[in-house]
């Protein structure tokens, strides 16, 4: 696609996203996203999932702009909580919490909040430019991929989401296969064969994504809170004025840019997860700091340690939209649910999206620029307002979440059966939460599973019944090699790095 063409499309997107109604959706989305980001116990994935029923009523562009606002806003809000509250939040903001908390404790909460918000804005905006420029290019390239290549890309996503990113490979894989199993329930897309419904008519159309997402996150979270967190006391750090000194700016700007440079590429590859880029950014900042500043890390709290990871996080989250939009491959809980939202409209994200739903895609991209500006305003001058949300008492918070969970679960299909199912899925989620099973593989497996199955069948039929097709096509073979490498390299490195040490200790 020509550059001029992209420019024209983007302007068109701004025209669509800039209508008063769509601006309102974006604003409500950003505000709601910030709120759910700030509130402990509910994240963007849960919020979008609970609101999925609106896809039956609201027009596609408006609701995608709305969901994107939530997706984005939660990233901004999440850092506020991790800086001010002394409880580890979600993994995405864990690194921010390390330094941000220390800064807040030494009376610099305001500076930490400011560098997080402005850093998120800088990284988000740069990453949106990357999405604007590269997504059409990737889409154009992706058109040339056939079913074997797609299947391999999905296999890559499955592998990285389950086996590589989490702390335990076995638990990650278990979660993935549970998700794939959930995706099997209902009518098979190709043959119309009914699978695993047990004669329950409600299960014919499959298990709703809303149920699984809301059950695994919201309900399980509430159950975990009542069972195990009753006596946990949260302590809150004192707020201070949200400003940065000249020296803060001087230290933050390079950290933001480095964080963006580290984070953006990680989102582009269909591997997902913000843990690796944020930790990498943190390690980089710590290494680059010298003397007095390095001593601040882990003691008084270094501003670079907030600025870098926060930028990396937002850059990754933003560029993760490239594989989602151009390949139809989600790599996190939230992008998996966004894919589900597209599917509710009968839209299948993939390379054709940029031609068949051009106006929707470009409005979505334009709304990212708009949303970033809105969020900066919402989070800098108005941060004090959001902080009040931390005062909501736990019993009312979780009980309230259950009301919204009911809206999401019941609103989708108007079936009370789904509410019982929701409770059951909540129990499964509770066990997973208690034994530290990751949840992203379940969602990704459930949503991507049926698509991968279809690609597998198409690929095999292209190969005239032979699975050799996957190694005969260079592109698919190349991705297969990457999949194998992703699985084996970390283990080999571990094995080889252990051996010399064992030998050394054996000799001693």
């Amino acid at each position, binding site marked *: 696609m020509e550059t001029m063409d992209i420019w024209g499309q983007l302007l068109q997107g701004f025209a669509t996203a800039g209508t008063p109604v769509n601006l309102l959706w974006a604003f409500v989305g950003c505000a709601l996203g910030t709120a759910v980001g700030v509130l402990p116990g509910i994240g963007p994935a849960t919020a979008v999932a609970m609101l999925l*029923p609106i896809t*039956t*009523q609201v027009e596609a562009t408006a609701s995608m702009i709305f969901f994107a606002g939530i997706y984005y806003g939660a990233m901004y809000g999440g850092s506020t909580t991790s800086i001010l509250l002394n409880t*580890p939040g979600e993994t995405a903001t864990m690194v921010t919490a390390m330094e941000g908390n220390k800064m807040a404790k030494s009376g610099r909460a305001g500076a930490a909040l400011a560098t997080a918000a402005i850093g998120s804005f800088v990284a988000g905006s740069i990453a949106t430019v990357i999405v604007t420029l590269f997504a059409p290019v990737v889409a154009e390239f992706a058109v040339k991929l056939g079913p074997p290549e797609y299947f391999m890309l999905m296999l890559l996503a499955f592998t990285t989401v389950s086996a590589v990113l989490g*702390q*335990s490979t*076995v*638990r990650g*894989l*278990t979660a993935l*296969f*549970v998700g*794939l*199993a959930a995706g*099997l329930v209902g009518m*098979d897309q*190709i*043959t119309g*064969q009914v*699978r*695993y419904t047990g004669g329950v008519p409600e299960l014919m159309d499959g298990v709703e994504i809303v149920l699984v997402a809301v059950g695994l996150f919201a*309900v399980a979270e*509430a*159950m975990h*809170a*009542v*069972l*195990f*967190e*009753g*006596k946990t006391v949260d302590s809150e750090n004192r707020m201070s004025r949200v400003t940065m000194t000249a020296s803060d700016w001087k230290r933050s700007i390079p950290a933001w840019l480095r964080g963006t440079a580290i984070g953006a590429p990680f989102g582009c590859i269909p591997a997902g997860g913000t843990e690796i880029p944020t930790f990498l950014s943190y390690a980089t900042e710590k290494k680059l700091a010298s003397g007095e500043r390095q001593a601040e890390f882990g003691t008084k709290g270094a501003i670079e340690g907030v600025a870098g990871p926060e930028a990396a996080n937002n850059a990754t989250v933003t560029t993760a939209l490239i594989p989602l939009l151009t390949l139809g491959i989600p790599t996190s809980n939230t992008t998996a649910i966004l894919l589900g939202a597209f599917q509710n409209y009968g839209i299948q994200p993939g390379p054709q999206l940029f031609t068949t739903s051009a106006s929707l895609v470009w409005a979505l991209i334009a709304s990212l620029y708009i949303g970033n500006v809105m969020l900066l305003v919402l989070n800098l001058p108005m941060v004090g307002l959001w902080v009040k949300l931390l005062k909501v008492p*736990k*019993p*009312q918070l*979780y*009980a*309230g979440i*259950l*009301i*919204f969970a*009911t*809206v999401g679960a*019941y*609103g989708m299909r*108007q079936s*009370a059966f789904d*509410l*019982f199912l929701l*409770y059951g899925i*909540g129990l499964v989620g509770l*066990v997973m939460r*208690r*034994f*530290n099973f990751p949840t992203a593989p379940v969602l990704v497996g459930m949503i991507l*599973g049926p698509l991968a199955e279809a690609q*597998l*069948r*198409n690929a*095999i*039929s292209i190969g005239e019944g032979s699975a050799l097709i996957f190694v005969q096509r260079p592109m698919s073979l190349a991705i297969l090699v990457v999949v194998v490498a992703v699985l084996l390299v970390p283990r080999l490195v571990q094995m080889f790095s252990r051996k010399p040490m064992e030998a050394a200790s054996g000799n001693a």
Partner: protein
Amino acid sequence: MQAHAPAQHSPYLQALVGVGVLLLALALALGAWFIPSDAGYGGVGPNFLPWVVSIALGGCGFLLIRKARRSGYLHMGDHDGEHPYWAGFAWMSAGMLLNAALITRIGFVFSCALCFVLAARGLRNAQATARLGAKSWVIDCVVALLIAAPVYWMFTKFLGINLPGLTESGWL
């Protein structure tokens, strides 16, 4: 202050999770058995993925049990040291299940309010150090209605989502 010794993650419970996964795998395999293998075209039938998932989950279940018996799960995070508070869990479960059973009969607003009050009771008791008075019940009931009713109006009136009401008026 802790009344008991810190709770440990019991290896039995961990093994039980593995057994659960194994049972799920068996159930899936049983189901896969009854799915016709009719491949249509291309040679991969609708029973192919079910078999793959059953076998893989079986393997995972086996590995989880082995892991639990040998070293226990690693990276369990900050969970240790807390005893589950089952009474609170029972309150919350009652709330959710009654909500599921009653929502079509007494309508969204009252059913959800009931769920809220019961769940909040469980959570309050989990936190409580002293006995809670009647006042907290009243507060919960009021807050429940103040959340449930506007949520009902917002979703049914503005967003056109169908939620069950007690009356035909659309307001309750």
